[in-house]
Structure formats: structure tokens, C-alpha cells
């Protein structure tokens, strides 16, 4: 069990480094096409992490829809516009310094979330006096694994999606309708 956790952790960190590295390259590559490809790489790494975090179905969609369809759309547009490679304009270094600095400050604020463990979250969410066993507070933490085992990765998501989350699900249809009509109106050469 212990070695299993360690192996998972190691794999997690490998993919985490992969994701961060790809993301860094994505935001620094001067070529838009390269950026897009590095973003796809980040998404793959994230998909792997999703699997580690017991979200197999989402991981599959991540690869199929996100990395597959959406990013292909990006690549398609980039190649359609046939943008030439713009070298970095080093005169804009103040913008870089300010941007990176701001992001760093924001990052130091947000990375404090690192201190969260299941036990801490359980303590904060529960109204019971601490210490608390996370398993008592988050029965679903295990239930998720159980549900995945019984209903399969898709079933555990699908059932609530079509029952409890019916209204948002229907709203997404409106969203896609708006997006489709909008994209057609804007992108079509002649109406």
C-alpha cells in the first residue's frame, strides 16, 4: 500500500513537472504553432494527472475534446492565418518584468493552497470539533471510488449529470447554440 502511494506520488510529480514545463514553453515560444503544441502537451500531462486523481472519464474527455478537438481548432486557425514568426521584441522588457512580477505575486498568494491536506479540509468543512477523520466528513471521497467500481467511470458521472444537473446540462445546449450561431455570423465571409 505504502509503496503504491509512493509510486503514484512519483508519477504525479513527473507529470506535474511535465505540465509546468510545457506550460512555460507554451507561454514563452514566439511561434504560435509551437505554443499551441506545448499547450496540447500540457493538456496531456493534465489528463494523466486526472487519472491519478480518480477522474478517468474526465481524463478521456480532456484528451478527446480538449486536446483533440478544441486545440485542433486553434491549430487550424493559426495555420489558416499563416502568421509569420514574430521574434521577441526585447524593447518590451518592462512589460515582461511587470507581467512576470504580478504573476509571481499572484502565485505566492495562490500557492498557499499547497498547505491543504484532506485532514485540514475536513476540519474546516466540518462543524465538529477536531481532530476529525476525513473519511467521516467526506464519505464521498471513498464513494467516488466505489461508484467508479460499480458504475464505471462514465456511469458515475453520467447518472448525476442527467438527474441532478439536468438544468445546467440543458443550459449548455443554449450555450452551444449561441456559440454556433455567433461563430457563423462572425466568421462567414458573406451572410
Amino acid at each position, binding site marked *: 500500500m505504502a509503496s503504491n502511494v509512493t509510486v503514484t506520488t512519483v508519477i504525479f510529480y513527473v507529470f506535474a513537472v511535465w505540465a509546468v514545463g510545457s506550460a512555460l514553453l507554451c507561454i514563452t515560444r514566439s511561434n504560435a504553432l509551437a505554443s499551441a503544441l506545448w499547450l496540447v502537451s500540457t493538456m496531456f500531462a493534465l489528463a494523466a494527472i486526472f487519472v491519478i486523481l480518480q477522474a478517468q472519464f474526465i481524463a478521456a474527455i480532456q484528451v478527446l475534446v480538449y486536446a483533440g478537438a478544441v486545440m485542433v481548432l486553434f491549430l487550424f486557425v493559426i495555420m489558416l492565418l499563416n502568421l509569420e514568426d514574430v521574434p521577441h521584441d526585447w524593447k518590451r522588457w518592462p512589460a515582461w518584468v511587470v507581467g512576470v512580477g504580478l504573476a509571481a505575486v499572484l502565485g505566492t498568494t495562490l500557492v498557499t493552497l499547497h498547505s491543504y491536506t484532506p485532514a485540514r*479540509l475536513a476540519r474546516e*468543512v466540518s462543524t465538529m470539533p477536531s481532530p476529525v477523520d476525513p473519511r467521516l466528513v467526506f464519505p464521498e471521497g471513498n464513494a467516488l471510488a466505489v461508484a467508479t467500481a460499480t458504475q464505471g467511470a462514465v456511469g458515475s458521472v453520467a447518472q448525476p449529470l442527467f438527474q441532478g*444537473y*439536468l438544468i*445546467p446540462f440543458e443550459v449548455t445546449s*443554449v*450555450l452551444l*447554440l*449561441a*456559440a454556433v450561431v455567433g461563430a457563423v455570423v462572425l466568421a462567414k465571409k458573406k451572410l
Partner: protein
Amino acid sequence: MPIDLSSPGGATLALLPELVLTFWALVVLMYVAWHHRDGHDMRTAGGLSIVGYIFAAAATAWLAWRGARPEGLSFMIALDGFRFASDALLLWIAAAVAILSVRWLIRQGILAPEYYPMLMLATVGMMLLAGAADLITLFLGLEVMSISVYVLAGFDRTRRASAEAALKYFLIGAFASGFLLYGIALTYGATGQFNFDLIGAQFAATPPTLMAKLGMGLILVGFAFKIAAVPFHAWAPDVYEGAPTPITAFMASGVKAAAFLALVRVLAEVFPALVDLWRPVIFGLAAITILVGNLTALSQTSMKRMLAYSAIAHAGYLLLAVWAHSDEGTAAVLIYLLAYSVTIVAAFGILASIERAGARTVRLTDLEGLFSVRPFASIGLSICMLSLLGFPGTFGFIGKWYLLSAALRAGQTTLPVIAMVGSAISIGYYLPVVLAMTLKPARTRQAHQTIRFPRPARIAVGICVFAILLLGVWPNTVLNFATQTAVQLRQSELPIGPR
């Protein structure tokens, strides 16, 4: 009429106004698919869409009349007077914008009747945003609204300014969505819930945690963008200037109203326990927004830009009532939004009629001598300016009065003083408009000869201006309604205790 929101039937009933509007948008889309050639088709599509708004309003009224309320938990969508009032407000804005658009689009040569279904879908999004009882619905409603409005902002495809406005709005909007979404994620993490009432109960039972604070902060950032509070405002003037004028009116009144209504609901239902934390944030936003909005508006020459900065300043005033976090504050938000939307729709309606086809934007100097040629239009615009100024006797004054008194009653004295200073500054840019129209001679003899004021727009603007004056001296019906509605926002009793 108790409605069980967890059952499909109940959900359908509760979402009746949105469903009616979506259905009608599909009907219009069907019509448009076969008829999108000339002005006649444009007019028909516009007329059809207005019928849709009327149906949706009727559905809202029916729900309100039957006293629809949730049986048990308010699940995904709220069912209270506040939502019905919000829906009514948003529907009337959308309908008025549709009326103003009909002839304007034809004059500007924008012959794409998809405009009206997009406007209807944007309205659906706004209604979902303002009526959400769940962070998921909130986010999706916001996105439906935003995506439709991105498209509408870029609808005038022949003008570069329009495309630029759409791009700026889209990029910064998507950026802001990211922040909002992160906030939702952390709020979910801190409580394990998406439902407003359940999150509120959870927060009430536990002291504020790091995750909750960060989540709330990021959600506030997302809303601050939508209401164009300084320093999240920078997109607004550019987008308002570049977008087609009726859409500018729609963004300045409708989108802003929806965002404010949702903000009030979120702060009242999700974060009431953290009031001491978010009040300083709202305080800072309000103060800086009022000052920057008013001061920057002073140096504008383009009317649309001036109104954009004034819209920013008005968002600052509205934050006063948000700060108040009381029934008076909620009522004040409703009243002010109504007053503001009536005024802004009328003002943009008149500006749209003054715009010449293909011309860039109406400047202050273009209005000179308008009174002698178009006395009614200039009187109407003057009344709008006075209402925005908060001149007593107009509806704008009533709105501002309630904002200030709500903040004062909540124990805040600094913000009202800042608001009054800002309002004193605003004289410097509202008054020159009146001045230019009534007291300056026209530049050329031909000036204002191209103004076309089509009858539907004239009627809509006329009603708005009349409402500004009437509600300025006789507002009690609206005020009573708003006060009763505001109380309902607090009355949602939680059937389930904290975990």
C-alpha cells in the same frame, strides 16, 4: 405555488420564462434561416423577437402571480420575487434594445437578422445569471450571456472598431471568466457545495478559511470585471465605443444590471457570513470607481465614451448599495438599475438616431444646435443627462437617493460623501451636453438634417423619458414593489441545516 425543483417537471416550470425565450429564439432563428435578405426580413425578425420578450415576460408574470416558490431547497434556479423582478427588468431592457435596433441596423447596412436570436440568447443568459441559485448555473448563465454579447459587440462586421471591440471584450472577458471559475472552484472546495443556500449555511457554521477567502476574492474579481469596476474597467470605454450603438445600450444597462443582480444575490446568499471580509473590498472598489469614472469622463469628447465612463461611475454608485448589504440596499439596487436602464436606453436611443450611417461616433460638437432642429430629441437627451446627474425631480435622483440612504443606514458615511463629490464632478460632463444642444448654434446649416427618428424608436424613447419624469415625482408604486421584493431575497429559509 410550491415547485419541486429537483423533478424535471418542476424544473421546467421554474425555468418557464427562460424556456419560452429560448424556444422563441429558435423560432426566430428558423425564420431567419430562410429570410435573411433585406430590410423587410430584418424588421420581421425584430418584431418576432419582441413578441418573444412579451411571452417571456408573461411567463414571468404568471409565475410571480401564482406565487411560485421552491418546495424545499432552491435547486439550481431561484424562485423568489427578486428573480421575477430581475427577469422583468432584464426583459424590458432587451425588448427596448430590440425596438431601437430595428431601423438602426437597416440604416447602418447591417443586414444580418441573426442579431435578434443572439440578443434573445444573451437575455436568456442574463436571466439565468441573475436568477441562479447555484454556482454552476451562475457560471453557465454568465457564459451564455458573455458569448452572445461578444458576438453582438462585433456584429457590425464592416467596421474595424466593432471587430476590435469584440476582440478586446472577448479576451479580457475570457480572462476574467478564468478568475471567476477559479473562485467557484475554491468556494466549492471550501464547502463541498455549489448551491447558494448550502454554501451560505456552511460558511455561517465555520469561521472563514483560507480557501473560502481566496474563493470569494476571485469571485469578486470576476464580478468586478462584469460590472466594470475600476481597475477592472479598462475594457468598457473601448468596447462601448466600438460596439453597435444599441448593443452599447444593452451592455451598459442589461449586462451590467444582470451582473449586479447576481452579485447582490451571491453576496446575500453565499457570503453573508463573510460580510466583514468583503465589505472593505467593495468599499475600495466603490471609492476608486466613482472617482476614476467621473474624472475620466470629464475629458471625453465622444458621446459614447463619455457615457461609458459615466456607466463606470454609476457602477461605483451602485456598489454603495452592495456595501450596505441590507434590504434597503437590495431595494436600492433594483430601483437604481431601473432608473439607470430607463435613462441609458433613452439616451442611447437618441444617440443612435443621430448617428449617420458609417460615421464613426457622435461627438459632443455634433450635438451643437440640435435644439433648433430636433427640439424633442434634444429635450429628451437633456432629461436623460439630468437624470444621470441625479437632478431632483427625475428618476435618477430617486435612485441615487435610495443608494445613499441605504449606505447611510448601514452605517457608512465616507462612501456617500465620495459619491456626492463624484456626482458634483459629473456636472462637468453631463451639463456640456445640454449646453451644446440648447445654447450653441449649429455648426453648419445642413447639420442634423440626416437625423432619422423612426417611429418605434421614438415611441420607446418617449416612453422612457416620460417614465424618467413620472417616476421622478411619483415613484411610490415602483418603490413599494422593490422594497417588497428585496425582503424576499432574505426570506429564503433553509430546509437543511449545515452538515
